[in-house]
């Protein structure tokens, strides 16, 4: 009798007991998790946020928005079922893929077995509440996307008043937004439908249609399956929502500044800007100095830029559900955005500290603030910002349906050493900071980026239209000469 027999015996006993109790084998053997084994995984990996008791009150919970799930309620946002109870597959998928736009990461680092085990343990927190058998939701027959379907989806979007929460253009800025609370009484934001990659339950057509059909449990998002004019409207709505934005933000690594010979419009809605490709830059919460911003409101700024012989012009687009100016009594502050550059552009990898510089190296800030416009400043850290006298920059902003569009114009060449001069074909470090004053962001409570690079493309001269034909003609002539000489010899 070796070690194998020692292990085999308890296994046999377990199997016998299971058989004796008439335990039916679950759908797939690999899916029957072991809650006892799952407990160890849970305590190591999950309890920090979800709490030891599974009540969503782990030590990190206070800092998180949205709050970690309280497993004791047995209420799950993302489910493919018509009733309250999610399938095990629904839960497994969230554990495996995480939830975009939240603090829930993808737990692919755990083995599949560990994930099934932890799932089994998580279910024990809800006890009887998850006893009911899950009942799959039946979606209407799929309608592929087409122009007509998107048009019908838009009509339905308006008829069923999605805009009440999600906003006219789908940016999550509807009039009911500020009132929304989840089942636990926490404020909850409606999804920004133009940023599909942040959808908690996934961005695929089937996933979007499922959320529409059976709602998002524990949140204000209701079920619409019985509340559209015709069942297939669920798919028309899905196709319309998919048309509101790209599937991915396609983040940029380099901001290219287009060379222009004529005037550059300072109207943020000008056709000129629509023709330029946006460089999407992701922003993160500032969590280095107090007060920190763990849940930044602004997560992306789309940057377009152009220059001519006089000026460099930046066009910034970002979503902000609330337009706000300075009203400290109401805990509201001015919405703002800033571009940050080193004061002098030097070759080499040395750059000032990305968070507004430090004592030894200053940065130059080009900042726009709602109600005040554009200003220029020199900073030696977030607490040491000094306005630069004789500002040469100006701005023009519009706010429509939860989105700012801003144009900032500045001379290409600077008058002094506190602000940079922009030169074509040079890689210029650039960073961004943004504040959603309506969400209480001000000072160091902001969104930031690290350094990116910006490059002014070389001016396009007419020589590129002249030189190649000249070269071609010369080559042709040379060939003819060669041919003639060859013929003469023959």
């Amino acid at each position, binding site marked *: 009798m070796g070690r194998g027999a020692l292990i085999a015996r308890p296994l046999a006993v377990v199997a016998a007991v299971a058989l004796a109790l008439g335990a039916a084998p679950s759908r797939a053997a690999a899916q029957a998790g072991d809650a006892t084994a799952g407990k160890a995984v849970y305590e190591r990996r999950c309890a920090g946020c979800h709490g030891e008791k599974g009540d969503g009150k782990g030590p990190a919970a206070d800092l998180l928005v949205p709050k970690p799930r309280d497993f004791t309620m047995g209420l799950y946002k993302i489910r493919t079922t018509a009733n309250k109870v999610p399938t095990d597959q629904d839960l497994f998928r969230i554990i495996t893929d995480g939830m975009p736009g939240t603090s829930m990461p993808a737990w692919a680092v755990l083995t599949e077995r560990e994930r099934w085990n932890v799932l089994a343990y998580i279910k024990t927190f809800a006890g009887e509440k998850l006893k009911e058998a899950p009942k799959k939701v039946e979606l209407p027959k799929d309608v592929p996307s087409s122009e007509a379907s998107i048009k019908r989806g838009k009509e339905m979007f308006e*008829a069923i*008043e999605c805009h*009440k*929460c999600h906003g006219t253009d789908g940016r999550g800025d509807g009039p*009911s937004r500020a009132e929304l*609370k989840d089942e636990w009484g926490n404020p909850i934001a409606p999804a920004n439908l133009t940023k599909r990659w942040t959808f908690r339950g996934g961005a695929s057509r089937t996933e979007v249609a499922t959320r529409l059909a059976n709602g998002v449990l524990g949140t*204000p998002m209701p*079920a619409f399956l*019985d*509340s559209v004019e015709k069942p297939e409207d669920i798919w028309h709505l899905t196709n319309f929502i998919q048309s509101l934005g790209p599937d991915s933000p396609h983040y940029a690594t380099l901001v290219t500044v287009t060379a222009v010979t004529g005037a550059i419009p300072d109207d943020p809605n000008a056709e000129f800007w629509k023709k330029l490709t946006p460089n999407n830059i992701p922003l993160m919460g500032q969590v280095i100095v107090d007060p920190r911003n763990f849940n930044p409101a602004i997560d992306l700024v789309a940057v377009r830029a152009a220059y001519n012989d006089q000026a460099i012009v930046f066009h910034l687009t970002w979503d902000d559900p609330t337009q706000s100016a300075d009203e400290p009594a109401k805990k509201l502050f001015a919405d703002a955005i800033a571009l940050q550059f080193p004061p002098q552009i030097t070759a080499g990898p040395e750059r000032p500290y990305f968070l507004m510089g430090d004592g030894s190296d200053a940065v130059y800030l080009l900042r726009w603030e709602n109600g005040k416009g554009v200003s220029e400043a020199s900073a030696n850290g977030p607490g040491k910002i000094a306005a630069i006298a004789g500002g040469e920059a100006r701005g023009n902003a519009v706010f429509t349906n939860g989105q700012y569009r801003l144009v900032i114009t500045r001379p290409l060449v600077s008058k002094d050493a506190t602000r940079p001069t922009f030169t074509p074909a040079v890689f210029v470090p650039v960073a961004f900071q943004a504040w959603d004053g309506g969400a209480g962001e001000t000072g160091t409570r902001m969104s930031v980026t690290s350094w990116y690079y910006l490059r002014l493309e070389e001016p396009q001269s007419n020589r590129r239209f002249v030189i190649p034909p000249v070269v071609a003609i010369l080559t042709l002539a040379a060939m003819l000469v060669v041919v003639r000489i060859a013929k003469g010899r023959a």
Partner: protein
Amino acid sequence: MRRALTAVVAVALVAGVVFVAHRPDQAGAQGGGTIEAAVTFAGAPVIEKLKVNKDTEKCGTETAIEKVVVGPNKGLAYAVVSVAGAKGAATAKKATIDQHGCKFVPHVQAMTPGEVEIKNSDDILHNIHTYSTANASINKAQPKFKKVMTEKFEKPEIIKVTCDVHSWMLGWVAVMPHPFFGVTDANGATRIENVPPGKYSVEVWHETLGKQTKEVEVKAGQTAKVAIEMKK
């Protein structure tokens, strides 16, 4: 002994017949009695007013969350009075929730287990979002073209009804295991009829002020008055 019993029954019958003859509207068909409840609250009303930022043509520019509504003589409105433990013919009492003027009408009502009709008279989007434990909670959109929906509240409990689109909207539906209940009017009064004779404890529930009970004896064909003062 038997003779005495016969005599009592005979007297009771005669009395009953006489009573029926005199007050035909009150005597229960099954020989039940009536409870007249008067619910009062000595404190001040709690009504939160707030500005409306959308759908003002339907909801008005200002609305009120009526947490404690006190009428004349301290009468407390919207209290559910029920006769705990009463058993009788299962006369179903249905409920209809109307969403009208961005309010649930009535604000508080009671029903026996079964179907509930949900109307949208506002021509704008509402969503029926219920908070319950025994019954499955509901969160269904009711766009303007969906005038009526039917849902089921099958298990006794008190269900909170909200609308996330208009967060001030608040309604309550008390699902009762028996048909012996009433909701107090603006004067704090309600009548519960056809209650089988017996000793009961009358239970009062109010959304903000909680629960209270009071003993009452119901005699066939008679009206038992019960006064209950709610306290914070």
